[in-house]
């Protein structure tokens, strides 16, 4: 009898405490989301309203004009296409190459398996600045070698390759740890059936890898989409830069018309935020599988 009473008392106390914690975290959540809401709010107001009535003035006009103008004046469509040219090949190539290595190290026992895995995983953790100077120089030299300076430098291909080189370590690590959980019997029966290495990889293992590939695909699309730095170094032509780099550029150009800039920021943020909401499960499991980002 007494234990039950104590139990109830304990639960009530716990409940009150939980409510308090929830309110406390809720307060922080509002602080957290506020800058984003404020940006959206700003993007809906015309520039003139703020100039004439002040930042906190009651909105006299709310419309989507800034969004249309952002597309028109900033030329965002072209920059979005540039992003597409970089992100899609980079993600596909990273996943493909990563799955090759993961396949070999998890299905065959070569002596160098562990060294290979270490090479790739450590590569993903290197401070990326270490590669700036030589990559820049290497790109120009390789271009000159083939008689075309923009073979890699100032070319989408060049940006794709650096992204792949850096991200493939993470993909390898995640895919190989996933493949270790796939029963070896599946591979053995494939080999007994006389499947070649390629068929073993392509027809047997690759279909089994769909969940981690999807998770990684979402995560990497987000990272590569968000990167604006490589393009600043390796793209000399503004018009070829991806949308995040372009936004950075436009920030300087439109520094006074911040309602337009706000609309631009919201537009550029939209794809990753939507991706996160729609494919949240993949997103989270991608991080869980690897537990780390490089």
């Amino acid at each position, binding site marked *: 009898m007494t234990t039950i009473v104590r139990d109830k008392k304990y639960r009530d106390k716990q409940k009150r405490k939980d409510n308090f914690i929830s309110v406390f975290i809720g307060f922080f959540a509002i602080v957290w989301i506020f800058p984003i809401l404020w940006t959206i709010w700003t993007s809906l107001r015309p520039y003139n309203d703020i100039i004439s009535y002040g930042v906190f003035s009651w909105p006299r006009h709310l419309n989507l004009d800034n969004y249309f103008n952002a597309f028109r004046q900033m030329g965002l469509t072209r920059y979005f296409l540039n992003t597409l040219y970089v992100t899609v090949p980079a993600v596909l190539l990273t996943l493909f190459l990563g799955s090759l290595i993961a396949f070999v190290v998890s299905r065959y026992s070569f002596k160098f398996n562990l060294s290979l895995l270490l090479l790739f995983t450590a590569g993903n953790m290197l401070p990326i600045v270490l590669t700036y100077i030589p990559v820049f120089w290497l790109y120009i030299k390789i271009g000159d070698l083939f008689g075309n300076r923009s073979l890699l430098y100032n070319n989408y291909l060049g940006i794709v390759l650096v992204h792949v080189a850096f991200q493939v370590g993470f993909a*390898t690590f995640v895919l190989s740890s996933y493949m270790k959980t796939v029963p070896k019997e599946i591979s053995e029966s494939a080999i007994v059936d006389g499947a070649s290495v390629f068929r073993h990889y392509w027809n047997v293992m690759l279909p089994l890898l769909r969940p981690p590939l999807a998770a990684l695909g979402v995560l990497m699309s987000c990272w590569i989409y968000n990167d604006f730095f490589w393009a600043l170094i390796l793209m000399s032509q503004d018009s070829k830069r991806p949308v995040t780099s372009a936004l950075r550029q436009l920030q300087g150009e439109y520094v006074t018309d911040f309602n337009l800039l706000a609309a631009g920021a919201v537009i550029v943020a939209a794809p990753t935020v939507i991706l996160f909401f729609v494919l949240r499960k993949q997103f989270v499991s991608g991080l869980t599988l690897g537990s780390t980002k490089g």
Partner: protein
Amino acid sequence: MKTAAANKKIRSRRTLSKNDRFTLAAFIGIPTLMQIIFLWLPALITIVLSFTYWNGINVGDIKWAGIANYKNIFFGTPVFYEALKNNAIWLLWFTFIATPLGILLAYQIDRKIKGHKLYETVFYIPVVLSLAIIGIIWNFMFQPGGFIQGIMGRDIGNAISIWGNYDINTYVIMGVASWRHIGYIMLLYLAGLKSVDSSLREASAIDGATEWQTFRKIVLPAMRPVNIIIVVITIIESLRAFDLVYIIYGTSTAWPLLNILVFQNFAGQGISMKGAAYAVILLVLCVGPILLYLRAVFKEDLK
């Protein structure tokens, strides 16, 4: 659970045909070659270049400098120590404030307190945004005509500079950096917490343990592998912190970080290869955490 059968790898090289061996070589060779050419080789070249003078154009112009670049950094560049200090502040802030907050947040959300789904989403959104966007968003807070200036009663005409105020900009930068870091740590930890047996926690609660005791004595030890990874991420992110400050100040040294110095010396005065030397110093600092990480994740394989 590893069974003997599962451990057995496909061993016999004899069963591999010539074709198969070629396929395997290509499977390993192509990604490895790419990784080496575009990542490891440049990294090595940077290490070598850090001991030279070079303008970055013709290979013939490279001149051996010995440790002159390093000497210059350690004894002739006060801004280097400022950068070290800022990196250290970043590390301390993340270690003692941002990361623990992320962990506690994950713990509470994992307990399914009221509104936990919404909270999880809200705290994670900053993590999926590009730094280029984060820079703009926070400018709307701090710039003339921004929200905070408005609250302080300052219009565009009589605004003050928040980024340029050396008394507060460190806190402001740490705040914005945490805005992103806390959500990231929260999600990582949340994923780990799902694997902790919840009956353990209930049992300790019934035994009369306080929330804090349960967290310290039950949850934290059970999360050891994730803890190591989070410690490493916190250290590495603090050492190579860069984008956020670059977005605010460009390559100026208004609030220097090691990584900013690398970039400044690469983009600006590339004659001495001091930028390369800064990058190598950064690498040296990162080696410890990287090894710690590799040891943690490959513990079983390394045995």
